[in-house]
Structures are given as C-alpha cells and as structure tokens.
C-alpha cells in the first residue's frame, strides 16, 4: 500500500503507549517520546530539557541543547507558561504534546497555513533546526495537570462526551487516555475553549491540519457534539475504568 493519505489519515497510533512502541519514522529525527497520557501527572521524567535535546543535528547551526530551553523561556513562556501550561483559554497547553505534533504545527505556522498572528510572527523567524530544537524540547515537557475546576464537571455531559468520543472514534487516534502520540495531539486536559475553536475550525476548514484527518473525521458531526467533546476532553482525568472493556 502506499503511504497514504495524509489525507484521511487519522494518523497514527492510538494511545500514548504507542510512543514507546513505534520507532521514530523520521530520517535524522531524534524523536523523543512524549510524556505519558494526560492525567498521569508529573513524574520523575520531569527535569528533562537537558537530557532531551541530547542529539542535536551535527549541522552547522545546531545550537547547544540548553539554548532552546533558554529560548523557550524568553520566546514562548510568557504566553504558554514556563512549564508549558497557562490558564489562558485560547492558548493551548504545550506540556504533554508529542514532539512530532509540535513540529507539524510550527511548520504550518511558519508556512502561513495555520493562521495565528502571534504564532506566525514567531514561527517565521525559525529555521529548520529551530523547529527541531523547539519541538524536541516541548515534546519532553512533562504533562501539567489542570487546576481543580471551580465547579465539578456535569456528570451527564461527561457521560455524553465519553460516548461521543467512542462513537466518533476519537479514541482510535487520540487513545483511550486522550494522550495522543506521534503526530496526534494530547487533548485530555487541554483548554475547553481552545478545543472548541479547534474542532469547529477543523469542521469548517478554517483550521488546516497537517493532514486532512480531522477535517475528514469531523465533517459529519453536529457542532453541538463538538462542543460536548471539547467539554469532555478538557475535563478528562485519565482513562475511565468504566468503558475500558468497550
């Protein structure tokens, strides 16, 4: 078979587990496994940056490992938080995102395909080596749990969201733990508003993906279901025991 369809590609690999299983597919890329699925909380893997960028390209411009941590602190942290999570509704949580997903998004910003004024401005200044360096660094940020909600999640809406995530096969690619993997983002614990805007954008075509996977997957889903999914994923705290047997 051909390497298909990015088109339909619901990419890869469900479950964050797959990160450990699937070897990096990418020429020359040092694909650092992302941290485990959302909800598992920070662990010992934490102090990562130095270890993470262990294999910068030997190329001319590859800066030392630590400099991406410094550049992250000056360039990214003001909006995204020093640990990759800021409670700003439309600023996505970076902590816990797989490095391959991160580099595809930086690429889309740099190419002007995914539009966001602030991100495009930043991405336009980045070289290929920078894209690698930042994505490897961000891919190694340990997940940061969401703060306790002001009001407890509505159990009916959560149950409905869980059913929709099964029905629409979100878990095929994002995993039962909603942790993503490879080019699939972690959506468990992501900000609800960001998820909502993203889902609606994929459906309408205003938010391009690296592949057509999300647009294809969402084209038939009513917007109110997308909002329920956003509500559910944002409040998701680890795989539910309830449906593990499907």
């Amino acid at each position, binding site marked *: *078979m051909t390497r298909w369809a990015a088109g339909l590609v619901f990419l890869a690999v469900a479950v964050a587990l797959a990160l450990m299983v699937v070897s990096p597919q990418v020429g020359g890329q040092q694909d650092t496994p992302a941290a485990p699925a959302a909800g598992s909380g920070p662990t010992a893997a934490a102090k990562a940056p130095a270890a993470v960028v262990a294999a910068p390209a030997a190329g001319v411009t590859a800066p030392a490992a630590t400099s991406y941590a410094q550049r992250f602190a000056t360039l990214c942290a003001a909006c995204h938080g020093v640990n990759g999570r800021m409670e700003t509704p439309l600023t996505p949580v970076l902590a816990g995102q797989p490095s391959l997903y991160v580099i595809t998004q930086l690429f889309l910003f740099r190419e002007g395909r995914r539009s966001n004024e602030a991100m495009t401005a930043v991405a336009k200044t980045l070289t290929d080596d920078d894209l690698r360096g930042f994505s490897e660094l961000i891919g190694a940020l340990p997940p940061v749990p969401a703060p306790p909600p002001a009001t407890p999640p509505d159990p009916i809406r959560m149950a409905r969201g869980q059913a929709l995530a099964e029905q629409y*096969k979100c878990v095929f690619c994002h995993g039962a733990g909603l942790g993503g993997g490879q080019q699939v983002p972690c959506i468990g614990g992501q900000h609800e508003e960001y998820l909502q805007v993203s889902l609606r954008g994929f459906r309408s075509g205003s938010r391009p993906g690296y592949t057509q996977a999300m647009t294809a997957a969402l084209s038939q889903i009513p917007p109110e279901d997308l909002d329920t999914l956003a509500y559910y994923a944002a409040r998701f705290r680890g795989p539910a025991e309830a449906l593990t047997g499907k």
Partner: protein
Amino acid sequence: MKSVSSLVVLATLCCIGLPALAQQAPPPAAEPGWAKGRPKTDTAMQMAPIPVFPIPTAPDKLPTSKFKLPPGFKVETWASGVLDARGLREGAKGNVFVSSLFVANKVYVIPEQGNHQAKVIIDKMPMATGIELHNGSLYVATNTKIMRYDNVEDRLDNLGEPKVLYDKLPGGNDHSWKYLRIHDNKLYFAIGAPCNICDPGPYAKIYRMNLDGTNIETIASGVRNTVGFDFDPKTGDLWFTDNGRDWFSEELPNDELNHVTKPGQEHFGFPFCHQGSIPDPEFGWGKSCDEYVKPAALLGPHAASLGLTFYRGKMFPAKYQGAMFIARHGPWNRTKKYADISVAWPDGKGGARIESFMTGFVENNSYLGRPVDFLVLKDGSLLVSDDHAGAIYRISYGQ
C-alpha cells in the same frame, strides 16, 4: 453495532438520560478509507499512515553513504532540502521538475547544471503530484484537475495561469493523487480506489485522454492504485505497478507488476482478486481469479510500489537497458519494514523477472529514506526521488 453496544454499556453505568441519548445518536462517523478492513487487534490499531516529516533531512544526515548497489554502480546526493520530493520529469532544456504530495504543496524546478538548488515554481497547490513534460509544456494533475503550463522552461520565474484541461476528477483523499505519462499524444492517468477495499465503481481504472482533455477512454480496470507506469520502448506496451490491499495479513497480498496487452479490455482483479491468486474474503465470493489478468510479477506484501521507469539510457551495462526500475517505497502497515529499488525484466512471455538493485533505506526497522520516482538523465545516469528525506540521489555506473 459497536456504538450501540457502547451505549448499552454506558446505559448500565449511568441510567440518566439514556432514552434521549439513544434517540439523538447520529450514525457513527465513517471510518477513514484506509482503515476499512483493519483488524481490531492492538497491533493493527496502532498502525496508520505517517505523513512525511515537515523538514528535509540535513545533507550530512542523508543515508546516501549507506546505500548498497551492484558492483560498478555508485550513488551520490544530487539535491537535498527538497521537502516531500515525489515525481521527477525533465524538460528539453535541462530543467528537472519535482512534484510533491501531502506536505509541501509545491512543484519545484532544479536545473541540471549548477548547484541543484530547488526553486519553487508552483506553491500552495495541494496534491500537485502528477507531472509530465511534453513539447515545452508542464502538465500538472492534482486530485481534482489536470492543467497545462505552456512554454514552461522559458517562464520559470512566473509560470502564469495554467490552462485547465480537465476538472472533473473525483477528488477525495484515498488514492486520489496522480501519476502522469504522455505516450503517442495521449495523456495517461489513473483514478485509484477511494478506499482500502470497496466496490470502486468508476474508480480503480487507468484512463487516457487527448492532450486537450477530450475523449477519455478506459485503458485498464481493476487497478487499485497505480502511481507508477511507463511504456516499454521496444513494444510500446504499458506496464504498471499496483498497490495491493491492506489489512489482509502481514504477508499477503503482494503488490503487482502488471502488463497491459489489450488496452481497454483487461481487468486486473481489484476488488475481487488480489495478486492473481487470492480471492478477496468479502468481494471474492462468486468470483474466480481466473477471470482476471494475472500479474507479470509480484512485488512484495504492502511494498508500496511507486514509480516505474524503463531505463532508456546507455550508461548502465547492457543488462539494464530496457529494464524497468521500480521504487518500493516500503510498507506502513506491516511490522517489518523494507524498501528498495528493484529492477524488472520483461521475460518475453508476458511475465517479468525481478531483482533488488539498491538497498539501505531501512535501519533498525525505521526508514532513513523512501524511494518514489525516477528520471533518466541525458548522460544515462538515474535520478531517484526520496520524499521521506526530501532528497534526490543520482545513480551512475563506471567513470
């Protein structure tokens, strides 16, 4: 059924609101075409196509030095930094044209003379994958239309607007991208099956049309997805690679190398019969593989056999002159990865003999590079595109 059963489980867990939920539930989202027929095992569920990495491999990290070829051949990096390099064609004035697929959305030109820096001549055109050069014009096919840019080698700084020859291609994602050849003033292209396995209707065929887009004719049916074909310079016959269905098993079916002997009258089996010998478990009922044209050769399970080019040069030893070079891009839905450049020789009896020619694309079961298409340069050397690494290699023989 599956969603129904999960709803039932859910209902037992939280009885509130179930009737409403059951009534409202819209039909489950359709599986993507590539996932049709995928077994529900954990291993299979973790396999999916992986798009090209968004950054070409740095020149000093390319696998060029790891490639292995027969004695007397050598390979060098001809161009690097060509994101998503797919199709290769050359104009009469020495310009090499390079297409792309899902990631770059570009067509590049690389002058044969000079430092081989790729220059973007078409940008922001998704699936600008099918290209062909003919009488000074560049033909470009996306998944929806076929266009022609005239006098292209004199207008590389600004191609201008193309003439649209045909805009009724079905589009979509699965197997919708194109591979083009022009032969005897006819433009050949295929419309691949819109799925892994399904009743393809008018899809899954090789067609040809006049160069102005008129008079579309069917050349071959039952062709799941061919993205590599060429005409034997000796006989004029069309040979094509075809990508076998997925998810049947790790080791079956094989991709096919096929030979068209009666244009328009032959059916090559899809979706009823695979590799000439295996009836499809679903669509094969009531059919016999004897009803379909057998492949000339088998190309390996899930090999993703892409570009096919007859070697028309003089540089390579006589053995290779008139042989077909075939790019085996390598499987995504098979546990053990492999990729190579193979060579096939028509055996004169309708079949073909195959030999592996260049290996070294896979290391530790990961791809370092993946070959896509070929171009025989005027000096007889052979260019090979690699979309995975974003590079083009040049294979030469002797001094």
